[in-house]
Every structure is written in C-alpha cells, then in structure tokens.
C-alpha cells in the first residue's frame, strides 16, 4: 500500500520534472553565450551615502568598487598595487609624491577625471566639518591639522596645504613625514576622485553617485531594497561585459543563499555559516574559497592589568596553550586558518611560520612557562567577546583549552555589542582578555602593525591593550622613510619580529572568504578585500 502510493508520487514528480525541463531548455536557448545581460548579486545595506571618503565598511565599498576607479588597484593574486587612473606615482624621499594621471578617464557625466577631482575629494574628506569616516586617512598629508583641528575648534583652512595641482593631469602630495606605503594606500576608497557635481549637494550625491568606474548608477539607491548599476560605455579601463548589475540588499544571508540556489541571484560573496557543510558539494567549481584579509586575536590589556598579563611568559604560555589547528577545523569548519604571522598570508611581506614556537600548540611547554612565571593573580582569567557576532563558540573553546592546559580558571564574558566591550575596556571597567580582529584598509604589511600596535593606535586605532614599545616605533618610522620597497619591507618585518617577541595580542586565526555563484555566470573573481570583480563577469 505504502509502496504503491510512493510509486504514484514518483511518477507524478517525473512527469512534472519532464515538463519542467521541456520549458526551461527552450528558455535557455535564447540566452546562450551572448555578451551583456544582467545579473543580481548580494549586498547588505551600506551604512553611509555612497561617497568613497565616507565609507569604511565592506558593503558600501563593494558598490563603490563598481562605480569608481582609484589611482591604483590591487592585483587579485599578489595584492601588489598596480596603476589604474594614475599614469605614474613617483617620489624621491617618500615625502613628496608626484602623481600623473592617464588620459581618457571621464566621470559618468562626461566630466574629465583631472588632478582637481582628486584634490577636491581629499579636501572634503579631510575636513572635520564633514565628519567623514575616511578622515584619519588624510592625517598624513601636510596641512591636515588645519582642516581637522579637533572638537570645539573651527577648521582654519578648506584646502590641504600638501596638495598642489601642477597641471590638469598632474598633482603633487606633500606628507608631514615620509611614508613609503603611500602608493599602496592610494587604492583605498577614501582616495577616490569626485566630480564637480558632488560639491552642489554631497548628500544627494551619495544617493546616486557619479563615479569614474566601469559601472554607473541606473537610477538612485533604493534603500534596503537594491542598487542598480549599468555598464559605463566610455570607461577607459577594461569595459565591463555585463549590461547591468543589481545589488540586491539582504538582511539575512541564509535567504540570499537560497536565492542563489534558485538562481534568482547569481553571486553571493559572503556565504552563511549554515551553508559551509554542503556548499562545496552543491556548487563544486563554482564555490570560491580563498584567504581573506582578516585576522582574529585574543587581546590582552597590558596597560590596565599588568599584574596578570605584564609578563611575556604568561602571554606566550596562553598562546602555546591554544590548539589553533583543532579550533579552525572543528569550530570553523575550515573557514579560518591557524595564524602563523601577525601579517596576513595574502599580504606581500607575510612569512610563513613567522610566529615560530609561540604559534605552535605545545601544552607541556605552555604549562612550564606559566608555572615559572607564577601564573596570574587569583588564578583567574576573563575572556570577553561580543555576543552578536558568532564568537561564542570559539571563545569558549579557547577558554576550555586554557583551562585544561594551564589549570587556570577561565570565564567567557559576553558583551551585548562590540562597542560595549570597547567602552568598558576604555573606561578600565573591564580588565580581562578580549577578542579582537583586524582587517586591512590596504594590502601592506605596515597596515597589520601600526593601526594595532603603535602608540598612535591607542587613541586612533585598535591598540586596546595599550602596548607601547619604542624600538617598534623606531623601526616603523625607519621603514616609513625608506624609499626602496624591498629594504622598507625588511624593516617592517623586523618590527613584526618585535611584536612576535612581545606578543601584545595573541593571533589565533586568519579568515577565509567563501563565495559561490550560479550556473548562469562565469569568470567570477573575488579580490582580497572580499569584493566581486564585476567588470569581468560574463553570462554563460
């Protein structure tokens, strides 16, 4: 009886399936191998108007990447900077830089991309009255203090002294101090140009920006719904192959993933955790899995709690008591890799296994170091994390490993939000260890050191531990001044060695990006920032 019913069902399903294939083949027939076409891709609602200078998060950056082209771009494989709008970027002393622009680049409204369009954009971003998220990126340029004198003060200038337009296609940048990584930094979206039209109404501009990239806006941003862009025909770089792209805005990645499975959308560059177990099976070659720029740490409050974490042996013991291999495999399903350098593996200057002994799981040695150093007061450690970002599991796993290997009592302490933890750390209300993460602004070894471990970063970056080391500062300055890229990188690596020796934070894992695309598209590539390289995508 039961067999008979299910047989009926199967027969029914087969008929339905046959009918379905019949109609879908006829559909596919007309769309075959033709260039152009439209696709839909995933996006989260950007936090700010679409202005490069005011965008510091990944969703806005994703759209800006399609709409704008900066002076430099990064190679998808090596992450080395390569010239884009710039014809040449030259310097003698790493302090004064001469930037020449290529011919032929125009904004989507036909206006030429000239030296002034960069100067205009940077002056706007550097002015504190605009409260743009990208403001700190201009602090290296001479004259930035006059545009950003601080709260309760008025800017005394509207133009950066360090920017000089030489002619239509040339301008010079004078920095406050030499900075060898300036050219690499220029690919960041805060350095994108802006057309004249921006000045009239920046707020309105942010809803439908006029850029100079391979795609232009197709109507205004429909908040929480979608952003539509279409191919810019007069693009001087490699023209886009698709006619248009719709960024569909999702709140829930699981929904986006189901839409991808139904081929309603074609690319998802951030897969939900629930998909990780089956995605490679389901998407095969259309599943992209590659290292990404993020690093996850366990941070230690050196300055507020030296009694517990002041001794380097204690920090080493903690690091060696963490089984990174097991953690990344079991908790993260391989979506993270064990960290073995403070510099991320995708960055020029990364050295495999640089952490050496301290990055290797060794519970015996860890316990030895721990006991020799006398442990921590009260034999207790707190491990803080923000409860809204899926960190509970790995923090608790680390807590358990420390408990088992060091015999110390560890409590995982949840904070509602990341910001709450930062506030409590800043107010010295919380003195325990904490989870921390960094992902780059631009692919340079320097960007994995200064914003996290320098003196400046205590106020202006992610140095929540309050780590200060003069030797490190000196090496960083030295590297900034060195014009020769190889010599400069070497100095940054030496600075990295000091961080490895001192271990102010304990690097635990680096991130992997996982994306997938549907059958109807090809040539999908994801760059190191986790953005889709949409200009090259084609329909099948």
């Amino acid at each position, binding site marked *: 009886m039961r067999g008979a019913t299910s047989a009926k069902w199967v027969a029914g399903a087969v008929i339905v399936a046959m009918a*379905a294939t019949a109609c879908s083949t006829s559909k596919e027939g007309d769309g075959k191998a033709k260039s152009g076409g439209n696709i839909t891709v995933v996006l989260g609602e950007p936090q700010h108007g679409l202005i490069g200078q005011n965008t510091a998060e990944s969703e806005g950056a994703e759209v800006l990447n399609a709409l704008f082209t900066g002076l430099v771009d990064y190679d998808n494989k090596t992450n080395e900077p390569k010239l884009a709008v710039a014809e040449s970027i030259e310097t003698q002393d790493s302090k004064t830089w001469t930037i020449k622009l290529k011919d032929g680049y125009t904004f989507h409204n036909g206006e030429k991309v000239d030296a002034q369009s960069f100067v205009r954009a940077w002056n706007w971003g550097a002015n504190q009255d605009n409260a743009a998220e990208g403001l700190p990126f201009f602090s290296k340029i001479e004259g930035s203090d006059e545009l950003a004198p601080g709260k309760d003060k008025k800017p005394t200038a509207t133009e950066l002294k360090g920017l000089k337009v030489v002619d239509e296609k040339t301008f010079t940048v004078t920095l406050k101090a030499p900075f060898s990584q300036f050219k690499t930094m220029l690919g960041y979206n805060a350095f994108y140009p802006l057309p004249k039209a921006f000045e009239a109404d920046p707020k309105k501009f942010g809803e439908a920006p006029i850029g100079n990239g391979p795609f232009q806006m197709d109507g205004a941003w429909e908040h929480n719904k979608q952003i539509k862009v279409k191919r810019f025909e007069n693009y001087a770089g490699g023209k886009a192959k698709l006619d248009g792209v719709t960024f569909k805005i999702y709140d829930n990645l699981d929904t986006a993933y189901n839409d991808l499975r139904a081929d309603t959308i074609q690319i998802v560059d951030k897969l939900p955790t629930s998909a990780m177990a089956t995605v490679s099976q389901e998407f095969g070659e259309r599943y992209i899995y590659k290292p990404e720029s993020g690093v996850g740490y366990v941070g230690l409050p050196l300055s507020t709690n030296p009694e517990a974490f002041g001794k380097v042996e204690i920090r080493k013991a903690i690091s060696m008591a963490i089984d990174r291999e097991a953690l990344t495999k079991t908790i993260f399903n391989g979506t993270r890799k064990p960290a073995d350098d403070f510099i991320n593996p995708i960055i020029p200057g990364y050295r495999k296994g640089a952490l050496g002994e301290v990055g290797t799981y060794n519970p015996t040695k860890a316990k030895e170091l721990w006991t020799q150093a006398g442990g921590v007061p009260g034999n207790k450690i707190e491990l803080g994390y923000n409860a809204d970002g899926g960190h509970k599991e790995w923090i608790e796993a680390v807590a358990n490993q420390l408990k088992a290997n060091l015999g110390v009592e560890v409590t995982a302490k949840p904070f509602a939000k990341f910001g709450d933890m930062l506030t409590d750390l800043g107010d010295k209300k919380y003195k325990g260890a904490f989870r921390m993460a960094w992902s780059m602004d631009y692919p340079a070894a320097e960007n994995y050191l200064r914003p996290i471990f320098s003196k400046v970063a205590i106020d202006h970056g992610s140095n929540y531990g309050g780590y200060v080391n003069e030797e490190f500062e000196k090496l960083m300055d030295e590297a900034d001044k060195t014009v020769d890229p190889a010599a400069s990188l070497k100095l940054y690596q030496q600075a990295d060695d000091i961080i490895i020796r001192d271990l102010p934070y304990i690097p635990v894992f680096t991130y992997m990006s996982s994306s997938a695309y549907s059958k109807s598209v090809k040539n999908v590539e994801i760059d190191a920032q986790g953005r889709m390289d949409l200009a090259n995508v084609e329909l099948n």
Partner: protein
Amino acid sequence: MGRYLIRRLIQAIPVLLGATFLIYFLTFALGGDPVQALAGEKKADPLVAAMLREKYHLDDPFLVQYWNYLTGVLQGNLGETLNGRQVLDLITEAFPYTVNLAIVAFAIEALVGVTAGIMAALRRGKFLDQLVLLSTLLVISIPVFVTGFVLQLLLGVELKELGFDFFPVSFNESDGFKAYLLPGFILASTSLAYVTRLTRTSLMETMRADYVRTAVAKGLPRRRVVVNHALRNALIPIVTFLGADLGSLMGGAVITENIFNINGIGGLIAQAIRLDQGTVLVGVVTLLVLVYLLANLIVDLLYAVLDPRIRYA
C-alpha cells in the same frame, strides 16, 4: 457612540506620550554607542565620533534629548539617523510592505481559521475535527523560522527547479501579490491555528446554549441557526483575538520579514536595534503603539455590532 469615540481618542494621547517617554528612556538606558556601531569592528576615529556626537546631541543629558525629540515630533520631525536619513522616510518606505503582508496574513488567518473552526465544531469528534486539531497542534509547536526556512527551500528552490515558480525565495516588488503569499501564510500560521481552535471551542459552546436549541426547535434551517444565531455570539472572543493580532501583525513580523527579505517595519526594528539607532526605534515603536490603540478601538466598536446588548454612550 460619537462621544465615546472622541473620549477614546483623547485617552490615546497620554498613552502615546507615556509610550514615547518609556521607549526613549529604555533605549537610552540600554546604552550602546550608535557612532561605534556605525564604524563596525574598527574603532571609530575619535574626532569623527566627537563631531557626530555633537551634531546629533548624543552627549546631552537624557531629559534634554527627550525634550528635543518631543518638540521635534510635535513639528512633524521624527528625527534623523546618524547616516542622515529621516526617520519619517524610513517608516513611510517600510510601512506599505508590512501593511500588505499583514493584510494577506490577516485574510488567511481570518478566512481559513474561522472556516476550519466552524467545520471542526460542527463535525465534533469526526475525522475532519481530528485532522484540524492535529494539524493546528503541529503548527503551534514548530517555531516560525523553521517552517519559514523549510517551506522557502521546498517551495522556493526545489519546486522552482521542477519548473513551478510560484513562491519566490525572497521578496521582489515585481512579483506583486505572489510575493506575499508564502510569507503571509508563514506569518499567519501560528495565529491561524489559534483562531481555528478558538472558533471551534467557542462555537461548540454556543451551539449548546438554550437559545440555539430554541432556534432549532422553532424549525429554522440549520444554516440560519449556525450563521445568524450561534456564530454571531461565538465570534466575540475571536474578534478580540483577531483585533489584538492585527496589531502584532503590523509590527511583529521581524522573523518572517527577515526570512523572506521583506524590508518592512520588522526589518527596520531589527536594524535599528543592531545599529543602536534609538531615534528610529522610538519612532517605529510609537507608531506600533498607535496601531495597537486603533486596533483595540475597532474591536471595541465591533462588539456593539456583534452583540446588540453592548452599547457605548
């Protein structure tokens, strides 16, 4: 009736004021830092953060902030988010989707629920009754997000592969009414089960009442007995439930909207909580209080229609 209506509307004013104060106080007491939330996992630049705090008066004392907010509201200004969007715009953008979804869900739950309830009540103990009881129990016991994702996968992905594209995975304006069908059903499902069971019980009880027996004895057709005499009385508790539910449908669809990517009020609330956007939260929740008040008023007025003994003066 008119005076009653006016009295109720006047009563709504202090309730609304109290609600805004309470919600404003709660979001303020919750703490959270909208400036940091905007910057994500990197530390907000101190200068940029200070400029934003100054611009949006985030460092003012609570009562000053509340007063500013209230005077703004009286002038029709519900405030602005940190990224420069008007809260009123956010609400007017989101509300139509929520209303459409609520109407679809409400229609499903009222029509299907009451019909199934009546049928079950009239066939007490029979197969149909058992079936209704069992299926409603099932619906009540499975959480909405499970039903939501399972049906999304089955109907949106698997069925589409078979060529039936009736239930899109996520919401698309161009799909029109079709886009609301599955989310509406999911949203209605739990209430639907309650309405069914409530109708069943209530009608069964009324059917045993003396006046119904009289009506039957008088020789009235069964249809007339059930519809005009029994059901009309039996509907009172159901209308109460449906009225309250309309209020929660308007604002409580956080999960369903999230699963089907409908950018309605539920999504707005979730987003505001995530980004510590107090002003958005106060605006939306106050609106929901208003909706509840109106829904309850309508329910109270409906009582008089259903039961002639109830009169308002």
